[in-house]
């Protein structure tokens, strides 16, 4: 079972992980990832990011996450996938994203979980804006995220 949610509400990590293998005996591995808001230091100042607001593109965001999950399912033997991504205003320590993958064996579960996060970071339409003492500041996309996603591309030839 694959399921994708884009929501303002927090989620229960334990319940989400448990649901991936509930009522079945063919799951041998569940790998999961939880992304959190980090209190980054602001450059050249003593202050930290006090909150951030996540904007998304309703409709396209859900579709793109579903496409990423389908892509993962074509690359690895998966028995279930759950992706949750929050939007709205979040403060440091709060959960932003959950990815859980069930498989027969850990190799596929680990790989698919990492793949989904790498693709999510470069393809799912979400944008972060940090609160700073000077006002809101949009977070720049990172090249490291592009190269993390690029390593999953099929080698040419």
């Amino acid at each position: 079972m694959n399921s994708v949610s884009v929501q303002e509400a927090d989620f229960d990590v334990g319940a989400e992980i448990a649901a991936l293998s509930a009522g079945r005996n063919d799951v041998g591995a569940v790998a999961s990832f939880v992304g959190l808001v980090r209190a980054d230091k602001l450059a050249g100042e003593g202050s930290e990011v006090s909150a951030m607001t996540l904007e998304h593109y309703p409709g396209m965001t859900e579709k793109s996450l579903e496409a990423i999950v389908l892509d993962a399912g074509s690359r690895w033997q998966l028995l279930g996938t759950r992706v949750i991504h929050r939007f709205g205003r979040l403060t440091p320590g709060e959960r932003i994203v959950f990815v859980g993958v069930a498989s027969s064996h850990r190799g596929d579960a680990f790989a698919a979980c990492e793949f989904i996060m790498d693709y999510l970071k470069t393809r799912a339409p979400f944008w972060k804006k940090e609160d700073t003492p000077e006002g809101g500041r949009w977070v720049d996309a990172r090249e490291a995220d592009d190269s993390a996603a690029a390593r999953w591309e099929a080698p040419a030839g």
Partner: protein
Amino acid sequence: MSIKVLYFASLRETLGYSHETLTLPATIATLGDLRAHLAKRGGAWEALDVGRNVRMAINQEMAGADTAVADRDEIAFFPPVTGG
């Protein structure tokens, strides 16, 4: 040809619009044509100039400049994504 255009995140703030409905001249065939057409409005709209780091989508799928634009399409312009 009538289309809906959406703008997100920093681009939405720069342009001062979250969406608009446009009737396009027949000379606009592709997403790249539309982007150039909008950039020609000048001022803040130069944020859509070729060379600026802008992503595009047609009907909620990422699309390149060569993609054809059709009547009633939903088109979006936005900066590189930063979720996760």
